[in-house]
């Protein structure tokens, strides 16, 4: 199968799964933004998604995408390290125009994945999982998303720590996407001499658009938490 056996095929899989996850994040971020304007509206979205069949199928699809993206990343990295050979260069110069993030995509990906696990525990486990299994895993009703968000981010002490952790996560995600988006398009063949600069700018804009809604929500609750401290 060329999607597994050829280098471009493997990169093609990475690109497609990555872009699909970007689309999901855009959707997720927009939903989140609702909580800043109205907690009721946010809970309505939680209710609409919840443990309904389409949300469950979507979740399974996402889990599959993350699994494929991550296992391919490990596979590619092992192959790439082997291709470098046994001896490393004693001196490695700074290469002009090579972004730091492009050389550290795996590290950034692992950071993103690590925080993702924390995030799934913070919310998904207490909401969709609780609703699916009927087990009470959190303090509130599984569909009362706004209450969970508020409790996590505004509790004195831990709330602010969580805000900081989520912001670190979002920075890693931005760096990952700042290279990932244009690189994915390039791998799909959508690039040429003229579009090279444009596509990098597009990648940067998409990365910012993905991260911004999440960051706004965290900063909103960070402000609220600090306000409650005073």
């Amino acid at each position: 199968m060329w999607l597994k056996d050829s280098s471009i095929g493997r990169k093609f899989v990475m690109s497609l799964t990555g872009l699909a996850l970007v689309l999901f994040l855009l959707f997720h971020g927009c939903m989140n933004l609702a909580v800043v304007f109205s907690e009721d509206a946010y809970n309505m979205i939680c209710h609409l998604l919840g443990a309904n069949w389409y949300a469950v199928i979507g979740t399974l699809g996402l889990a599959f995408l993350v699994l494929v993206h991550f296992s391919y990343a490990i596979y590619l990295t092992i192959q790439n390290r082997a291709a470098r050979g046994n001896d490393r260069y004693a001196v490695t110069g700074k290469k002009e125009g090579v972004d730091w993030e492009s050389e550290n995509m795996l590290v950034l990906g692992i950071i993103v994945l690590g925080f993702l696990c924390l995030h799934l525990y913070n919310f998904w486990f207490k909401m969709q999982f609780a609703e699916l299994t009927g087990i009470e895993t959190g303090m509130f009703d599984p569909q009362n998303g706004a209450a969970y968000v508020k409790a996590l981010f505004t509790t004195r002490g831990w709330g602010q720590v969580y805000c900081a952790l989520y912001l670190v996560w979002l920075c890693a995600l931005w760096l990952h996407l700042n290279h990932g988006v244009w690189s994915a398009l390039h791998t799909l063949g959508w690039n040429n001499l003229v579009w090279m600069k444009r596509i990098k700018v597009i990648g940067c804009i998409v990365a910012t658009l993905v991260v911004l809604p999440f960051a706004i929500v965290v900063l909103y609750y960070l402000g609220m938490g600090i306000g409650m401290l005073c």
Partner: protein
Amino acid sequence: MDSYIDIKVRVWRQAGPKAQGHFETYELKHVFQGASFLEMIDILNEQLVAEHKDPVTYDHDCREGICGMCSMYVNGHPHGPDSAITTCQLHMRKFKDGETITVEPWRSRAFPVIKDLMVDRQAYDKIMQAGGFVSVNTGGVPDANAIPIPKPVADEAMDAASCIGCGACAAACKNGSAMLFVSAKVSQLALLPQGKIEAAARAKAMVAKMDELGFGNCTNTGACAAECPKSVSLANIARLNREFLCAKFQD
């Protein structure tokens, strides 16, 4: 103004393909800055021969930047710390008095070291043999303007064809990927009518050979294009991806 400098050269010495390599530091006094880097190594070798030591083995041929033989990693850069040149075009004026210059061979699984700084780059030849040619009958030599080719296309094909196959791209790549080389070779033919006929088969064959020889997977960091002595563009890689994916979807 060029003057004379005293330098230390830290060179990778490896007796053979299987031998354990190590760095050896040599002092060179009174080196003229107008000398090329390879001339400096020649001076070093004369000094080593006079001392009855084994001279440093390195590849070189044309010494005018078109053969791509002088493959070496100088101070962390393939072909040294200057842009768009080969090692033979590098001059000692790029270095300061008292500087220690580190010289290493290409380090890539597909380019095993033969001796010291000389590596086996037949992998690139094998990729070329897999499809980097036109085998259809293109007839006799036509008039230059018989087949109209737009200037931008001709320029891009020519720029891709400027690749000298030196291996700096795979050497500089953190993934040991040969994509810039393969993409340049696929592009120079895929852009022109004579090469288009076999374009799909060529892309598949050359990529398959590249994978088979143990080169890594491209992650678009761009180190290859940054270090390429001929400034071959990263855009060629997108073209190769396009050619390859289209060919696979047509199957």
